[in-house]
């Protein structure tokens, strides 16, 4: 003990006798050393806690999957008591999270009346109310998850809570609100578009397209209704969907759009008319060559390559000053010569 006190005293003396810069160095070293030590402890502790939570999760999973199976495969599932289940979810904070994941897995894997049973159970044990609560009070990332789960399970009782999220500043929240309305729709899946304030991102467009193609069972919307939408991205989306779903009846509405101002829209219109092989539209498409935008001009040349012929191409009144355009022209010439 004495030795220890002596050592401390000596260190103190050394420290007090040192110039300021040595003092600074010593303090900083001590601080950094402590931080290193703390970080290492923290890393090890995180690993340890992760493994503890993992183990806890496993037991909860076992218990819950038993409960869900009991309900799902019982013959009189509608009368089956769910009090035990509900209580279990109340006791464990982790349980709700695990339960929601399990419901998602079941919905993803099952078909038929089991989906309906799952939804009923989800509501009965209070998980739906829990998600509604999050939608009212939660942090944005929790809200995103809630919206996603509700749309996957097709629970559309509280559209009113999700509706305001369409105007959210948070891009992911807005995106998932959009997908919710498309996914839960029995008909008119695009009616939300009327309320949209901000442009659709390409990510959103692709996901809407996916739901329409692979999940939506109702009548396919007439996309030409959205060709006059005030958001450019919605108009582009509509033009693309006309192409994807081969809505030939909408091509008449497309031709006047060649006079639109935005080059991106024009390009998309030309691409759709080409893909649907509307040869009558070719003279109108060629008119668009007059717009001095490379993007559009290149698309016109591509349309001629697809639907026109070599004579049409060389007869074009076109100024090839721009090297990119000259190159596109050369390429079109080459391809038309091949055929």
């Amino acid at each position, binding site marked *: 003990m004495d030795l220890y006190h002596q050592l401390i005293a000596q260190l103190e003396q050394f420290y007090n006798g*040192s110039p300021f810069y040595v003092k600074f160095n010593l303090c900083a*070293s001590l601080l950094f050393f402590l931080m290193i030590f703390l970080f290492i402890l923290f890393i090890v502790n995180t690993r340890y806690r992760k493994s503890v939570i993992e183990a806890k999760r496993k037991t909860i999973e076992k218990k819950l999957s038993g409960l869900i199976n009991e309900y799902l495969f019982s013959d009189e599932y509608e009368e089956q008591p769910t009090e035990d289940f509900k209580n279990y979810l109340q006791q464990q904070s982790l349980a709700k999270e695990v339960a929601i994941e399990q419901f998602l897995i079941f919905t993803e894997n099952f078909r038929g009346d089991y989906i309906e049973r799952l939804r009923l159970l989800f509501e009965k044990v209070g998980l739906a109310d829990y998600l509604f609560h999050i939608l009212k009070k939660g942090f944005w990332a929790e809200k995103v998850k809630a919206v996603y789960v509700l749309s996957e399970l097709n629970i559309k009782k509280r559209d009113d809570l999700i509706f305001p999220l369409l105007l959210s500043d948070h891009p992911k929240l807005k995106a998932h609100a959009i997908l919710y309305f498309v996914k839960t729709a029995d008909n008119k899946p695009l009616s939300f578009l009327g309320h949209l304030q901000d*442009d*659709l991102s*390409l*990510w959103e467009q692709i996901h809407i397209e996916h739901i329409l193609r692979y999940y939506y069972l109702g009548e396919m919307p007439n996309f030409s209704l959205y060709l006059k939408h005030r958001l450019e991205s919605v108009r582009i989306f509509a033009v693309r969907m006309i192409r994807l779903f081969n809505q030939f009846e909408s091509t008449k509405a497309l031709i006047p759009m060649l006079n639109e101002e935005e080059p991106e829209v024009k390009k998309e219109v030309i691409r759709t008319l080409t893909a649907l092989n509307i040869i009558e539209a070719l003279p109108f498409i060629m008119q668009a060559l007059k717009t001095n935008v490379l993007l559009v001009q290149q698309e016109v040349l591509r349309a001629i390559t697809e639907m026109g012929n070599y004579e049409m191409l060389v007869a074009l009144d076109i100024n090839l000053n721009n090297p*990119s355009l000259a*190159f596109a022209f050369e*390429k079109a010439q080459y391809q038309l010569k091949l055929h």
Partner: protein
Amino acid sequence: MKVDHLFSIFAWLFIAYSILVYLGYLVGALFSFLELREYKQNNLLENEVPLLKTSNLPAVSILAPAYNESVTIIENVRSLLTLNYPAFEIVIINDGSSDDSLEKLIATFQLKKDTSPHYNFIATAEVKAVYKSQLSSFASLTVIDKENGGKADALNAGVNIAEHQLVCCIDVDCILEQDALVKLVKPFLNSTKKKVIAAGGVIRIANSCTIEDGKLVKVELPKSFIARAQLLEYFRAFLMGRMAWSRIDGLLIISGAFGMFDKNLIIEAGGYNTKTVGEDMELLVRMRKMMRKKEVPYEVGFIPNPLCWTEVPEDLNVLSRQRNRWARGCAETLWIHRRMLFNPYYKTLGLLSAPYWFFFEWLAPIIEFIGILFFIYLTFTGQVNWVYSISFFIVVYFLSVLFSITAIFFEEYSFQQYKNLKDIFKLILASFLDPLIFHPLVMWYSIRGNIDLFRKKKGWGKMTRKGFTK
């Protein structure tokens, strides 16, 4: 008395500098943490199936320059062909290799000369021929055979020929995860208000990992110290550094090993600069300047997922050449764009990013080297204040270790690639050794790079590879 006075000045300067470094570290760690957390929250529910099934995803041209890669090229191209992406082409640019790379490619993929017209938007060394495969299963493969012109020149030739709107520039020997393109394209899909000009990813280290058929099967911690030290370095650079810069949109570099760009903007900016060895950094800086001048709102994306794995040199000669090149690239880029430094017109770029690169990336090894020379001089003349020197050394040492440990924490927090707790202890041990062994080495290489720069030395700095398949 005189020496004491000098010490005093030196000590104050050091205190100011270290407080700056310390604050930089704190802010960097905080920003990177926030950025990683936000990324994780945003991608919790990501499902890539819709992206893979649509026809509206922007098509991508992969550009891979190759110089004497005969040993691994076939395996690498095969692995690229299996990437998950709805529409992409692969452009291999054979930059005047002296080995049999081209012959191998022609034989394996049944290549035939392509006669369709091409246009050189960017001037390059002479393109001898362009090849396409006759087999429909390799229809997306194009090979350019050109005179040697360096990596930048090869990439420019690739940009000229690329069919698609986005180009993804990679090192041909990198191992990409199957969903690398789908993940890297996301920044381009999400933005509606700003133009995305480029997106970069994290580079991970593949040494000692199990690779089969050009695919990463099992992640292992590198066995040699030199590779482990580089692993820590990459953690610090990518998970801490670039993540934090990405938060304030101040990224100056997208690694040449894996990055995606808007093709038309590359052409508009004039392509890769063939006069520097730091072409990857120089291009992004130039594109940013161009956007600033056009006053178009833009952003640069950054994806922290482990998507691209590369073998780092374990041979000291190879490492020295690589670092030499990096040091020159950094100095050249800073010199070319010196007007940007402290220029408020460029905002974050001029006031934060450029000064950071100037002081901490370029100047730091030089200051350090001068310090060591000064210390040696003092030792020989018997003027060393040992108490000060030792305490000074200890602070610097602990700060460097702290950097690495924090970086390990970020790895733990983000993607936890090393599942075994033992590996983490090995990395912690490496963090303690790194400032003593690896760091002085790297510093010396970058000093050599700077010296070479003044003597005007150029070139690829050949990298000999072991090849992954055993």
